[in-house]
């Protein structure tokens, strides 16, 4: 039997942070509004600092059980993909197995991955189903990245939002998930990073020294940092090759793809890639206006926009491609 994406559920924090709210917080940037809007975000959700990622994703999973007729006892495996965990140990997936009242006879693992998290996790899920004849796997992808932002880091506050997604992957006779392509370049691991506070660098007074970059954006080593131009160039150079490799590995032509769903990093980067690759508008999904870049949750959310609107039909081929933190990249072709 072959794995396929059966259902996707989205769940967002209560607090909405609109562009109006943004310009109240950063009034000095009002004159740059038109330029900022090119990243394609009008509003995003921000998680409360006291709410862990596992709470958001727990609600997403409960919502999925309400929306589908899947019995909790029929879940064979749980994968929790995040960069925020309840404790140093045990795994958060173990805690979620219990909170979600899933069977004790299942495996549960945490996957630490960001922008490429959904693609990394989906490949593991595919392997688990094919190797073990599992019937239903619950994949939970969540991001609470906004908690890591420096209060003066306007660029990150504008671009990113928090979200949780629960994805039910079941099995069927026909193929549903193609072959995967991956890439990793740890030589550029400092392009997107929280430098201090992990195992490598402990938090010290130095960690909190503010640094303003050449564009007037501020952060510190205890908070999230992104080399925006470096990441943009990485996307511009890496994604076209990635698309070629995914098509080749899956013996599929560019024209045979019905939809292209990329990691919703930034609308300007997406439009630049669309133009470079020659993807027609009707095949290219941009879906981040009301959510922002939600890291590991962007592809499930964008993919779900096709599913919810009945835009896709059985047999359609959807190419998914992720890229970001690590730096990492990866993708495959989904057969709906």
């Amino acid at each position: 039997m072959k794995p396929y994406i059966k259902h996707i559920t989205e769940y967002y924090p209560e607090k909405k942070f609109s562009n109006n709210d943004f310009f109240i917080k950063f009034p000095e940037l009002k004159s740059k509004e038109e330029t900022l809007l090119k990243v394609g975000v009008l509003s995003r959700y921000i998680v409360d600092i006291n709410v862990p990622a596992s709470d958001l994703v727990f609600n997403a999973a409960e919502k999925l059980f309400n929306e589908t007729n899947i019995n909790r006892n029929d879940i064979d495996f749980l994968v929790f993909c995040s960069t925020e965990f309840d404790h140093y140990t045990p795994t958060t997936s173990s805690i979620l197995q219990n909170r979600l009242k899933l069977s004790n006879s299942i495996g549960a693992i945490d996957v630490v991955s960001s922008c490429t998290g959904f693609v990394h996790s989906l490949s593991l899920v595919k392997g688990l189903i094919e190797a073990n004849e599992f019937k239903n796997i619950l994949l939970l992808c969540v991001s609470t990245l906004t908690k890591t932002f420096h209060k003066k880091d306007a660029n990150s506050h504008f671009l990113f939002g928090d979200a949780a997604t629960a994805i039910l992957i079941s099995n069927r006779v026909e193929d549903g998930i193609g072959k995967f392509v991956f890439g990793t370049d740890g030589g550029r691991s400092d392009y997107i990073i929280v430098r201090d506070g992990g195992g490598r660098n402990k938090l010290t007074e130095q960690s909190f020294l503010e640094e303003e970059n050449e564009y007037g954006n501020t952060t510190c080593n205890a908070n999230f940092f992104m080399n925006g131009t470096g990441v943009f160039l990485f996307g511009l150079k890496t994604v076209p090759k990635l698309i070629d490799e995914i098509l080749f590995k899956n013996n599929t032509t560019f024209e045979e793809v019905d939809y292209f769903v990329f990691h919703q990093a930034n609308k300007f980067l997406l439009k630049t890639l669309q133009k470079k690759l020659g993807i027609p508008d009707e095949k290219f999904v941009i879906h981040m206006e009301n959510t922002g870049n939600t890291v590991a949750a962007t592809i499930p959310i964008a993919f779900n926009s096709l599913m919810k609107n009945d835009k896709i039909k059985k047999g359609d081929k959807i190419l998914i491609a992720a890229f970001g933190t690590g730096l990492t990249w990866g993708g495959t072709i989904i057969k709906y």
Partner: protein
Amino acid sequence: MVTLDEFTKNIEIELDDLESGTLTSDINYRDLEQWSSMYALIIIAYVDSEYNVTLTGDDLRSCNTVRDLYLLIKSRV
């Protein structure tokens, strides 16, 4: 490659919220009120698409004016 004047005009068009005539080949582009990291991305994307030349963040840092950028791109075309 187009002339410096045409190149400057084209960059100004790409940075579409700039008033016509604001960008000249010899002003320091960092002095533009709207200068931001998004402007840097727009210039990188435009140069990649038009000239198949990769400008990096360091390139933008080492240049001050559109003339500097033009000469740098011209040397790489």
